[in-house]
């Protein structure tokens, strides 16, 4: 009987020693945070976009309508008044917006935002070269933004699909798309003659976007896309000149890219 008890005691002793190792507790001091939410609004000449209606006239005098509008913004950065920045990438760093999908018209940001005063907001329109990886999206709707591999791969930065009335008064479709551009040997538009690719994403500084973040409160910020601005300033974009599709037309996409600097403005901050 003594042997049995000794055996059991040895087992329990070993079990207790071996089985009860604990990890040190992480003692990260608590900080104060708030939340941020972006709401996306799309205007033409200051009024909400009305799709599928040929009621708009751009700076080139083209009568046009918008049927679909989808785009990515990424690497949204909040510039604190103390000189520091907060990159929004705690959960996602690329955000998709689609006027046909109401769930994409607001973005409840996962990141905890340190409280304080922020002077401005900036972001990348489209996706940077390092992050624009072919087949990184596998689900709709993002996956539908795929940019053909032979044309540079990755994803469209933006698709505005619509119609315009041409000089012969015929209604034509346009695919006002922005993505990775191509340079063609001898200007022969053929995928075999591509010798280089051009990254057309660009940085946007949202004007008048100062705000504050308060502890445990959510700040809502409206980001407005002024669609007509894609077709003006500094260049007048004429659908009659550039035609329906511009995915293989780097000069056209270069114009779109350069027109994009003032497309976004800040709306309601609440």
């Amino acid at each position, binding site marked *: 009987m003594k042997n049995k008890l000794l055996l059991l005691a040895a087992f329990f002793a*070993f*079990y207790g020693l071996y089985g009860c190792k604990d990890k040190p507790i992480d003692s990260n001091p608590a900080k104060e945070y708030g939340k941020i939410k972006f709401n996306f609004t799309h205007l033409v000449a200051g009024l909400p976009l009305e799709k599928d209606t040929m009621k708009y006239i751009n700076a080139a005098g083209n009568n046009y309508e918008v049927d679909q509008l989808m785009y990515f913004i990424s690497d949204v950065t909040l510039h604190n008044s103390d000189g520091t920045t907060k990159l929004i990438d705690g*959960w*996602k760093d690329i955000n998709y917006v689609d006027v046909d999908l109401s769930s994409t018209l607001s973005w*409840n940001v996962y990141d905890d935002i340190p409280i304080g005063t922020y002077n401005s907001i900036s972001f990348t329109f489209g996706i940077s070269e390092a992050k624009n990886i072919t087949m990184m999206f*596998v689900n709709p709707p993002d996956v539908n933004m795929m940019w053909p591999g032979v044309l540079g791969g990755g994803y469209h930065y933006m698709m505005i699909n619509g119609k315009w009335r041409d000089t012969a008064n015929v209604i034509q479709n346009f695919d006002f798309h922005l993505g990775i551009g191509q340079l063609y040997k001898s200007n022969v538009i053929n995928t075999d003659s591509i010798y280089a690719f051009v990254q057309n994403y660009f940085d946007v500084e949202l004007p008048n976007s100062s705000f504050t973040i308060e502890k445990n409160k959510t700040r809502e910020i409206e980001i407005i896309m002024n669609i007509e601005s894609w077709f003006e300033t500094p260049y007048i974009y004429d659908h009659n000149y550039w035609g329906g599709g511009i995915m293989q037309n780097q000069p056209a996409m270069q114009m779109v890219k350069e027109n994009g600097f003032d497309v976004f403005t800040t709306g309601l901050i609440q």
Partner: protein
Amino acid sequence: MKRIVVLIVGFLVFTLESKAQILKDTVKLMPFEIKDSINRKLPYLETTIQKEQLESGSIRDVGDFLRSIPNVSGVRKGGVAVDPVIRGFKFSQINVILDNGVKIENACPNRMDPVSSHVEAEDVENIEVIKGPFVLKYGPALGGVINLVSKKPHPFEKFEMHADALYGFETNWNGQKEHVSVWGGNKKIYFMLNGGYSDYGNYQSGNASRHDTTFNSSFRKYNYGATLGYSPKKNHSINLSYNEIHGRDILYPALPMDEKSDNTRLIALDYNAVDLSNIIKSLNVKIYYSDVDHVMDNSHRSGWDSKQMVSVVDAMNIGGRAEMGMQIKKHKVFVGLDYENINKDGARTMTMLMMGTTTIKKANLWKEAKTQNIGLFAEYKTFFSYWELDAALRLDYNLASSEDTLKLIKNHISYFNDVSSNYINFSISAGITKEIAKGLYVSLALGRGTRSPNMLERFIKLMTVGYDNFDYLGNPQLKPENNNEADITIKYSNEKIGNFYLNGFYSYVQDYIGAIMLPSSVVMPQTSGVLGVKQFVNVKAVGFTGGEFGYSTTEKYKWGGSVVAAFTYSYIPSVTKYIVTGNNVTGDTLLKNDALSEIPPLETTVSFFYKVLKGKLVPKISARIVADQRHVSEASYEPYTPGFALLNFSIKYNIIKYVSIAAGVNNIFDRAYYEHLNRKIIGTTGKLFEPGRVFYINVKVKI
């Protein structure tokens, strides 16, 4: 049908014409309810299922059958290959082996091919199920051991030859299976040849509520093998076996892909000797090789025209074990060592057809990944007066590496980088049993089982391998998982009253291997329809508790029956729940004492049988009642599962010495139901239902 008849008749004619047939083997008619063959002197629960029980039902899959054992459940993703779960422990938390030590590394990252799917029920002699981390001689064991022992030839005094053939058919699936075995030999040399074929269609769920659904669950499998034995002298034997198992077009509606083909090869060489000296009572040496070539794709899915996914994986396991049994008076000691070397390599090719162009992306799932494990083990058994003692020790050295080039580091956090790791693991168990009155035994078993992370948990890259709708990423730096378990069991056996047992267990699992979501800014999913990416991580601790109860009448009466019940409860003291709004993760919250996912609910099965015609004809009726599972994982958004009740009827008739029939009907009332562990249909929130009413018949001829 013609093919089946020709097959059966051909083999019968062949074997009947063989000379020297001596019909010694008889078809034993067992009481064929799932009766726990509990070894009353063991301090833990060990259940043994004999082949007669396997042959009496509509078994198309060993994993499916195992669910009839109390507190053994299974993860269903399709028509076959139900992945066994013991008391909530699953996958590599349980050690599933063939023939006392052959290991198979499942190739499919989605576990379309758990080890139990590489063995056909018709080739199984018996199945041992051991609950808890108490038996350590078969390899690291955390939650339990399932030992699938296949039929093997044996020597005869003089040359004999025998054969059996089985044909089975099931309605609903319109499924049929055929199997034949031929075996024989003499004192020195003996052999067995076996082969089988099964072809099942899609099944329908129950129609009692008038909304039956057909699930894409068809499958086709075939296998063949041979074993050659040689007995150089008395008490010594050498067996060499070769088996191939093939699967074709096996559909898994709960997975993003289906199994296009699976080709498995098993080779094993065994040397066994008994009574070598007064002290050395046994010596068993085994060397094995298993290789699985697995191809899966989404060609049976609607998205194939625009997005094609094809994964090809090769998994190889080479290993062996040696065990020596010794006895000095009343002390029995078994010592030995085992070794396994797993190699795994596989890639997924995605072809996207969009905007008139084709884009192809190839990514590896495993890149020349390797795991080696060498273990030393010892078991000790003894008894004194009314006490029995069982103890076991195990020491493992485990090392893993991979040729992966993936580096995932963000904000100084390394998610996937250093791919090498090695661990020394120690497992121990001990149990005592005391006979406190005639036939009444009380046992206490304590054990700590440790297992290293498996190949999938370490290295998998972005596949939907979990129960939820996420791609999973391996974690090469996972630590081993430890189960500290205590079992208390009361067993009572009486020739008149019957057999009874009651068990309670508690498991405290440290460094539990769970998973957490990763931000899309770190890694994006690669599988269509998933919500995001999760990565395997060690969770500080989780707990399991529960128990089992069983009672069965003795076999001496014409009538009889059994009652079994089982229950498992789990908890995780602290877990993060991610708040999902629309398609965005917008925040997180800490939950206390949440449930773990995929834990089976309380259930009970009651069976009655009555022997007529001197036991040749045995009808049986059984009712299975399963409670709701409402203790579900809130962090994983796991839905609750409603309870259900089923009634089954079966009959076994030993017509003549050579022919027996097993027939019956499962789910008599055609209930539409699903088990809690059944996975969701991919792309939906609906669960994969179990089959509705099924009539079946198995005809077996044995000579």
